[in-house]
Each structure stands twice: as C-alpha cells, then as structure tokens.
C-alpha cells in the first residue's frame, strides 16, 4: 500500500467489506445479544473498543513480535483488554453484564478482532490500524443495531425497554410476534439483511 487512504479505511467496513455480512466474521455474539437494543449497543461499543485498542497495541509491537508465537501474543493482548471491559461493565452496569453473560468473554475469540489483527494491524502503522479497528467495530455495530431494532420492535413492541406500539393497536387485535425473541429469528434476519445488501450491491453476489 503506497498511499494510505484514510477515508477508504473508514468507509469500507461499513458497507462493501462489512465484517458480518460480507466477511462473515463474529457472528456468534452478533446473534445472541440482539434480543433488545440496549445490550446490543453495549456489546457493539465493547467490541469496537477492544478491536480498536488491540489493533493499536499490536500495530505498535508489530516489528518485535516473532511470527511463530504471534497468535499467543495477540490472544494475551485481546484477553487483557476484554478483562478490562468486563470489569468496567461489572462495576458500572451490573445488570447488563449479567444479561450479556458469557458473550463479553467471547469477544476474545471473536473472529473480527483476530481477523483484523492478522489482516491489518500486523502490516500497518498504528494510526491507520486504530482507525481500521474503530471502523470494523462500527460495521459490526450497525448490523447488531439493525437486527436488535427489528427483534425488539416486533418481539416485545418496545425500543430500549419503552413501549412504542400504542395500546390501541393491541386492543384492535395486534399481538407481539413471540418467535422474534427466540434465537432462530436472529439467523433469519441476518440472512435477510445479507439479501437486501447484496441485491443493492451486485458485485458482492456469489456465483
């Protein structure tokens, strides 16, 4: 890469190279935390922070890490950051930390983090690496928020825990779609998001 193009680094992960819908990485947590908007947003922020800072740290150390043991070094850096995030959540948002349960710990093995470290941070300067981490975290967050928005709105008739569907509608016979709260719908919704994105961007379609 002769010329580092900052706007490309930032824009690509949001659409053309989205970590979830195009690279198909980090699905595990994406699906499990999207029953409601609030945990989804907290999860998105946590992943963004971890990706950004692990990218920055690994990029700073990239010339000193022997390539044979790089995976272990990366895991240790990521795990330390995740412990920090987990302790902060435990201290300030205990209920939310309980709701996210094991999925905070699973950020360590989130393929987005490892994937960006391997593909970008090991070969680039710290500032672009930091930006790349933030952008990929944001690309991940967008999908999380879309899926959580649909699931919470249709599943419980609320957004951020506040009722948004008026009582009058329920009186007319409308009822919440309970299956939206179950795990399978997360899979199907992501399938639909991919479908919409790929019919808009023809170059992403598989042969």
């Amino acid at each position, binding site marked *: 890469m002769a010329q580092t193009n900052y706007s490309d680094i930032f824009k690509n992960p949001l659409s053309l190279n989205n970590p979830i819908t195009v690279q198909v990485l980090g699905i*595990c947590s994406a699906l*499990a935390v999207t029953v409601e908007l609030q945990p989804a947003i907290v999860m998105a922020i946590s992943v963004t922070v971890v990706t950004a800072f692990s990218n920055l740290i690994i990029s700073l150390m990239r010339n000193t890490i022997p390539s044979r043991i790089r*995976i272990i070094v990366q895991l240790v850096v990521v*795990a330390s950051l995740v*412990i920090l995030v987990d302790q902060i959540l435990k201290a300030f948002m205990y209920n939310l930390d309980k709701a996210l349960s094991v999925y905070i*710990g699973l950020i360590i093995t989130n393929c987005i983090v490892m994937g960006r470290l391997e593909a970008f941070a090991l070969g680039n300067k710290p500032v672009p690496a930091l930006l790349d981490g933030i952008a990929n975290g944001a690309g991940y967050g967008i999908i999380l928020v879309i899926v959580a928005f649909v699931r919470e709105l249709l599943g419980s008739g609320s957004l951020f825990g506040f009722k948004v569907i008026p009582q009058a509608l329920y009186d007319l016979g409308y009822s919440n779609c309970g299956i939206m709260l179950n795990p*399978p719908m997360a899979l199907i919704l992501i*399938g639909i998001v991919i479908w919409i994105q790929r019919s808009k961007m023809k170059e992403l379609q598989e042969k």
Partner: protein
Amino acid sequence: MESLNLFIKSIFIDNMIFATFLGMCSYLAVSKTVKTSVGLGAAVIFVLLITVPVNYLLENYILKEGALSWLGDGYAEVDLSFLSFILFIAVIAAIVQLVEMIVEKFAPALYGQLGIFLPLIAVNCAIMGASLFMQQKEFETIGDSFVYALGSGIGWFIAIVLIAAIREKISYSNVPAPLKGVGIAFIVCGLMAIAFMSFMGIKLD
C-alpha cells in the same frame, strides 16, 4: 440419571449452534462439504473433551473465591475469578498446540484428517464458550463437566454435518442471486433452529 439428562439437554436443547450460536464463524466457513465438516466436528468434540475438564479443575482449585484454601488458611479469601478469561484462553491455545503435536506423533492417520482443522480451533468460540458456560453452570463434579463437554461437542457435530448436507444439495438449486452462498445458509440455519426448538421441554427422569 442427572448426567444422562444433562447429556441429552446439551445435545438438543442447549445446542451450541441453534441455541447459543457458539462457533458460528467456522460453522459457516467450513460447512460447504460433508467430508470436511465431519473432520471439523470430530476435532471440536476431541478438543472440548480435554479443555472443559481441565478448565473445570482450574476454576475450582485456583480461580474461584476461596478455591485456593488448599494452600493454607491465609489464601481462603483470595478471589482470582477476574483472571479466568486470560487463563482459559491460554489453556485452550496450549492444549490445542499439544494435542496437535501428540496426534501428529502417535496417530498420523487421524492427523491427516484433523490436521488442518486443529489450529483453527484455538480461536473457535465454541471451545471458549463451553468453558465459560461450564463456569457459569457451576457443575458439582468433574464428571458433569465431562458429560457437558461431550454433549455440546456432539450437538455441534450434528449441527455442522446436517447443514453441510443441506448446502451440498442447495448448490444445485435455483436460489435468487443475492441470496446465494452465505445468505441462504443463514436462512436454512434459522429454519433448522426452529426445528430444534421442538426439543425444548424434553426431560428424562
């Protein structure tokens, strides 16, 4: 009977893919043919069976609050549980490396089949997730943790072989162009998860 119940529950009801979405990344990436998915599934069962009991021992004799009391009274109140993430992942990475070397030395035929999948497994969320769920469920004996690992592993194996078989067939079907590949895999997987929901509520007594 308790153990049998746990076994059945971890295969069907708490299925790693359909109920908790653990290991989705490799699940979608490797499930294109039945043959490779059998290899990856077997490797997952194998690694789970070793890492979950080892992490169980670590959790109960080193990390948990009061777990260090075997060292003396002065250690009875030490709580190291904040270290569990880093210790678990280190154990998993080390064991995967070790298993790879042992299998290569003593069972070259097995290595030929599992070989390429073993390094992938160190960063498979299913392995780390099983250890974290083990920590959360607070099993009473190491036997239970072993049964849980076996059940989850088999559940993962079943899920990946099933979807691989379906994807092999789908490649001959006329799927709308934007849905081809990953898109349809997600939707099929969602439908399978709905089918697995019918196991909910099964309890052996």
